[in-house]
């Protein structure tokens, strides 16, 4: 690749840097790559914590009448598992990945507001500590409960002072509130970066699709997170100042909390899954050796998902008894969101058709994402149908559905991204063989865990129960789910080993290990603090293709 410019790295350090100085550098950094790395690392640590919480729950549910956990402990575990996975695994990993990638992909020096970026990270970091501090401080003076036990969507009036004594729910509110402010600030930062910091020649329609999708994602963050903050403030006023927002005895309304929460909550799941779309959209073309199919349609579909996703929230509330008219409207809008998502699916598949596909780990995970996300999307269409939803609402069918979307979809896309960009961030490749083992173990373990949940849900098993009787016919399916967890644990352990081992012993990656086309691969791995020695100039959507193939550049056809 002699045509690639090879910027000189930073001057070699003389002698080892003392541990304290290195720590000081990480704590005070405003560099988007370092902050992004810290985001992702924290996200993966919380992924392990929340995964172990889930493991304990599956152990308890493996067969009827288990007494591994008390009912109270079980309630705390599913609350902490859900809250952690959404706010302290999904959010930091997507914000971290975008942090690392956006400036590199659009040829910028850093984000638009680097210090705001550091501020956002530390808010997330301490917000997450605040939530977990509830295990120690949540008892308050009442000797009641430790961690929050109100479920990740914290329905009123369960969260009111009357029913949730002690301070655990206050920690839930404050932890997420603080982290939410950080995420909103980072969303604003992303929008300013993408709109204002693109390199010369990069018009909006020449941006990598990851930047496009993160732009829409950030708009959703800016629009959807403040309503949650407002709702949480109201709840906090109820609990600490004696206000009556969600206090039904004084005329308050539990339904209002549901509306506020899901007005945030549904865009939130798109905030989580859109970066997953972004990762596979970048990875599939590179490993199919083809340009992405239907770039303008991809952009249009992303914008459409952004618009529709703020108008579907009441499909979480079909069972509360809204008017038939409202139910019908929200059923329609929910079905509608399947259209742009379908367009994306077809575009990814069309990119692969006729391509020279290389099944290296990133592509394996992307393919896994496609299949499993499709299944999750299809059960989503089932659930959008009001009568069907009434049958399985709050059952394990729903649990199976959203794990297919968020685990089978998002987590697989995250692994694809980790395997793809790890060499760019660290300079070393992850081990391919371990990666493939991990993929197959996770694929089998995942489907074994969450596939049977659809059946146990159809058989009537409600979510959030800590145990069940032998005569319900659920025990076989629950046992399967719990066995699946063991296989997943092996897969995750392989991943942990792979990362730790490859960080020090991995194969040196070079600048462009995958023969890719976007700007981040034109600089060194890891990139220097200033990213690019010269400001890049682009002429097409695949600037590195143009450099590698000066005889047949893309800009002739775009």
């Amino acid at each position: 690749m002699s045509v690639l410019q090879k910027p000189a790295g930073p001057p070699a350090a003389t002698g080892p840097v003392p541990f304290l100085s290195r720590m000081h550098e990480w704590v005070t950094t405003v560099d988007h790559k370092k902050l992004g790395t810290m985001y992702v690392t924290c996200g993966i640590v919380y992924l392990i914590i929340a995964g172990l919480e889930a493991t304990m729950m599956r152990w308890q549910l493996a067969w009827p009448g288990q007494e591994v956990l008390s009912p109270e402990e079980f309630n705390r575990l599913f609350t902490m598992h859900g809250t952690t996975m959404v706010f302290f695994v999904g959010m930091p990993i997507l914000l971290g990945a975008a942090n690392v990638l956006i400036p590199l992909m659009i040829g910028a020096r850093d984000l638009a507001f680097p210090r705001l970026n550091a501020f956002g990270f530390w808010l997330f970091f301490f917000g997450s500590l605040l939530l977990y501090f509830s295990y120690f401080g949540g008892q308050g003076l009442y000797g009641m409960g430790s961690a929050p036990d109100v479920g990740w969507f914290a329905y009123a009036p369960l969260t009111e002072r009357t029913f949730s004594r002690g301070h655990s729910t206050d920690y839930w509110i404050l932890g997420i509130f603080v982290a939410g402010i950080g995420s909103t600030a980072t969303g604003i930062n992303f929008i300013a970066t993408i709109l204002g910091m693109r390199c010369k020649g990069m018009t909006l329609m020449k941006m990598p699709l990851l930047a496009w999708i993160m732009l829409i994602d950030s708009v959703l963050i800016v629009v959807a997170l403040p309503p949650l903050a407002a709702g949480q403030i109201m709840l906090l006023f109820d609990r600490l100042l004696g206000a009556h927002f969600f206090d039904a005895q004084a005329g308050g309304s539990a339904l209002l909390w549901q509306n506020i929460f899901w007005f945030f909550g549904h865009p939130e799941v798109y905030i989580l899954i859109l970066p997953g779309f972004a990762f596979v959209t970048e990875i599939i073309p590179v490993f199919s050796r083809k340009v992405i199919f239907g770039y303008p349609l991809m952009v249009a579909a992303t914008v459409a998902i952004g618009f529709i996703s703020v108008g579907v929230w009441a499909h979480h509330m079909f069972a509360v008894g809204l008017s038939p008219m409202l139910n019908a409207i929200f059923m329609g809008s929910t079905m509608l969101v399947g259209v742009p998502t379908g367009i994306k699916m077809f575009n990814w598949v069309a990119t692969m058709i006729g391509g020279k596909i290389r099944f290296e780990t990133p592509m394996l995970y992307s393919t896994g994402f496609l299949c499993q996300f499709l299944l999750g999307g299809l059960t989503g269409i089932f659930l959008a149908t009001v009568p069907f939803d009434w049958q399985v609402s709050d059952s394990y069918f729903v649990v199976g559905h959203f794990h297919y979307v968020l685990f089978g979809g998002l987590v697989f896309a995250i692994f694809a991204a980790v395997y793809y960009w790890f060499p760019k961030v660290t300079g070393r490749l992850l081990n391919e063989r371990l990666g493939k083992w991990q993929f197959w173990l996770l694929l089998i373990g995942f489907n074994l865990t969450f596939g049977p949940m659809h059946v146990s849900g159809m058989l009537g098993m409600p979510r959030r129960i800590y145990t069940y009787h032998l005569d319900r016919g659920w025990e076989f399916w629950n046992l399967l789910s719990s066995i699946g967890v063991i296989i997943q644990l092996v897969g995750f352990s392989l991943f942990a080993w792979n990362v730790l081992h490859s960080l020090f012993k991995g194969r040196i990656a070079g600048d462009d290990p995958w023969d890719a086309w976007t700007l981040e691969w034109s600089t060194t791995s890891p990139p220097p603090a200033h990213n690019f020695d010269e400001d890049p100039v682009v002429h097409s959507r695949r600037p590195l293709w143009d450099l590698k193939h000066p005889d047949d550049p893309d800009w002739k056809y775009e």
Partner: protein
Amino acid sequence: MTTAPAMLAPPEAVPQDRMSNGKIGVTCMIISEIAFFGTIIAAYLFYIGRDINGPYPQDVLEVSVAPLKVLFNSIFLLISSVWIWLAIRSMRAGRMGAFIFWWALTVICGAVFLVGTGFEWYGMIVDDGVWMGTNLFGTCFYTLVGFHAFHVTMGLIVLTLILVLALLGHVSPRNIEKVDLVSWYWHFVDGIWIVVFFVVYVFGNQPIQ
């Protein structure tokens, strides 16, 4: 690397006309603030007329009895938007003395508004005995008006900071963009007050059917 034939030279990249990062950032921040206030306002509208015990808004709020009091107050806040606009205009023209004059007037008007809110709250808490826990009206009123007052306070702190810096001679017409962005925020705080005013003192103040 062989040089590409001349016919394959890419078209010259045209530099694009873009909004500055600061402007994009502040616009997005204001959008997120609108989403925040929108939620509290939605809750306020939702609870109008649902109280199960008094005192009701029309027993307490002054608009129907002495409209001058709140309106007087509001006019101080709204007119400050004009002063800050004049301040920015003076700064653009390089007249720093005029800038400081209009900017100080903005601060004074904002402070008068806050003092007025303070008197209103004092009257409601001490004379009428309405606080957060009294009923739904108290809950919603103090949350919405309180959050607005909180935003005015934050704005005033920043405005005062700039005023002090300007008096010390640290603000020059080169800083126009940053100072201008502060004025955007101030316009937002004023604009949202118009909505809050209509929601709280007009729609929310109807007698119960």
